[in-house]
């Protein structure tokens, strides 16, 4: 941990990312209780009002809804769904990738072949088709589908993390002690292979934010009345000339959040993988 703190001081970009992410989390947690406007109320008096007018700090959209409120509420859904998908896909990836890599041989070969096939369908295309076909983009469905779409990639990372320390002495020692396979995989190997996996979880978090925003943009993500940043962009694209703020602020929200998480994951990759 000390090492991380030292590295963080030497990497100001990562510190900026950490502060930005913390700011978004705080905003998502306490923001809604201090907002002046509801995120769904349509103010018919002030449609497309510019930032600062009529008390709307970031302006309103074509329906007169407050952009700031929608962004703050949107941060809740995107942060929670992205966090869940990155955790679920990583847990599933570790379970599958570890089993394949640990047992090796034919199981592993068949598994890798299967992953190759699944990875040929881009995750965005897979999620879009399945969500569109289901016609259900509830938080649960979205989380489940995106997690599944990301699992082949996380399984690959987990597998190679396991392979890098599978043949070490402490693994043989545990085997001679007669420990179970599950014990060796998750108690002996996992803590030693945690670096690349942690990096993968944070990178996956960034990817998930991009994916959920993109799905919202394509109209197959979270459905109204849940405000979604990607959806806000496509909804207001037609008024980009009259009210550029209505698309720019949600875009900047996405940009700041993903860049913040990417800076952190980049930093973790440098600190946990490349140094060792």
């Amino acid at each position, binding site marked *: 941990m000390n090492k991380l703190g030292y590295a963080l001081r030497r990497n100001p970009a990562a510190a900026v990312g950490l502060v930005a992410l913390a700011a978004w989390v705080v905003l998502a947690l306490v923001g809604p209780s201090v907002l002046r406007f509801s995120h769904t109320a349509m103010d018919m008096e002030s449609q497309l009002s510019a930032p600062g007018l009529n008390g709307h700090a970031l302006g309103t959209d074509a329906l007169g809804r407050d952009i700031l409120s929608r962004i703050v509420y949107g941060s809740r859904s995107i942060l929670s769904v992205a966090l869940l998908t990155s955790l679920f896909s990583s847990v599933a990836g570790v379970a599958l990738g570890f089993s394949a890599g640990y047992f090796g041989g034919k199981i592993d070969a068949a598994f890798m072949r299967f992953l190759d096939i699944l990875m040929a369908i881009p995750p965005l295309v897979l999620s879009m088709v399945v969500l569109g076909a289901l016609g259900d983009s509830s938080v649960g469905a979205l989380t489940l589908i995106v997690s599944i779409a990301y699992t082949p990639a996380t399984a690959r990372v987990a597998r190679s993390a396991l392979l890098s320390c599978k043949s070490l002495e402490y693994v043989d020692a545990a085997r001679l002690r007669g420990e179970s396979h599950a014990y060796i995989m998750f108690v002996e190997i996992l803590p030693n292979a945690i670096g690349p996996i942690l990096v993968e979880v944070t990178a996956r978090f960034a990817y998930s934010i991009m994916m959920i*925003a993109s799905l919202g943009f394509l109209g197959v993500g979270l459905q109204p009345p849940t405000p979604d940043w990607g959806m806000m962009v496509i909804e207001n694209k037609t008024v*980009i000339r009259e009210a550029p703020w209505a698309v*720019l602020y949600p875009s900047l929200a*996405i940009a700041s959040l993903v860049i913040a998480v990417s800076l952190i994951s980049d930093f973790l990759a440098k600190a946990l993988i490349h140094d060792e």
Partner: protein
Amino acid sequence: MASLVLKKLGGMALTLVAMSLVIFMLVELIPGDAAQRILGQSATPEAVASLREAMGLDDPALARYARWAGGVLRGDLGESAYMRGVRIADIFWRRVGASITLAAASFLIFVPLSIVFGVLAGIRAGKLSDSIISFFGLATMALPEFVSGILLMALFSVRLKLLPIASMIPMGESLWQNLEILVLPALSVTFVMFGYVSRMQRSAMIGVMKSDYVRAAVLKGLPRRRVIFRHALKNALLPTVTVIGMNMGWLFGGLIVVETLFGYPGLGSLTLSAVKTLDLPLIEACVLFITAVYVISTTATDLLYGFLNPRIRFSGGAYE
């Protein structure tokens, strides 16, 4: 080498067949009756039953797969379920052509750009210019395509009024008469790809500059410029070629977002409208094409890598 090529091509064919099965099964899982969907909720059960019969929906799944796959091999992608009477092949390839043009335009911008800046960052590693390029690469890579697209649109179309806001082709005109519509979509793709490729190029360059043979060349007293261009660059380009090839399939997936943002009439926007209208045969055709691009470009990259790397070319293909 020849046996290696055959092996790779055989593996590719097998993957494509497995792919088509996965896609077929995926579409099979879509709930609801395809015939009912075409005829609408008000259709009589008899009408639905006779359409099911005509479409062969009552046949076993394997027979339907065989019929579909056989059709695809003959170039027959079937009939659209949403636009009645439209053969998919009649609209499909024009859209694919438009997407390939867009991909090629992006390619022409991002490949030289990211290689030049990646090399620059690599040979100046740790300096200010490297930090700026690296941060820019990370930031652009982190932006979803529609965010960079919106930012470009707000700047070039709304503020500067230089480029069209939508990338539609006017009726009766061809893409070639409207090349300016390609610029913003291609730049949006460039934003994302620049991050991946320049970062890869940077780290490859750093690795090569530290290698013994480059240090030997420097110690021999060769001018730095000559060492970089004659000795280092050639080897540092190898990983970049791989990352570009591996990302071609990804690029086609990303086009869905870019084409939707700009209303560009390519394969991506066709895929989205197929999903929105639940046009199953069209979904199958689009997804199969996108995955085929991925599989073929991955195999081609693999082969190209082997060809470019003499250690593999002469060892008879024992590489992994």
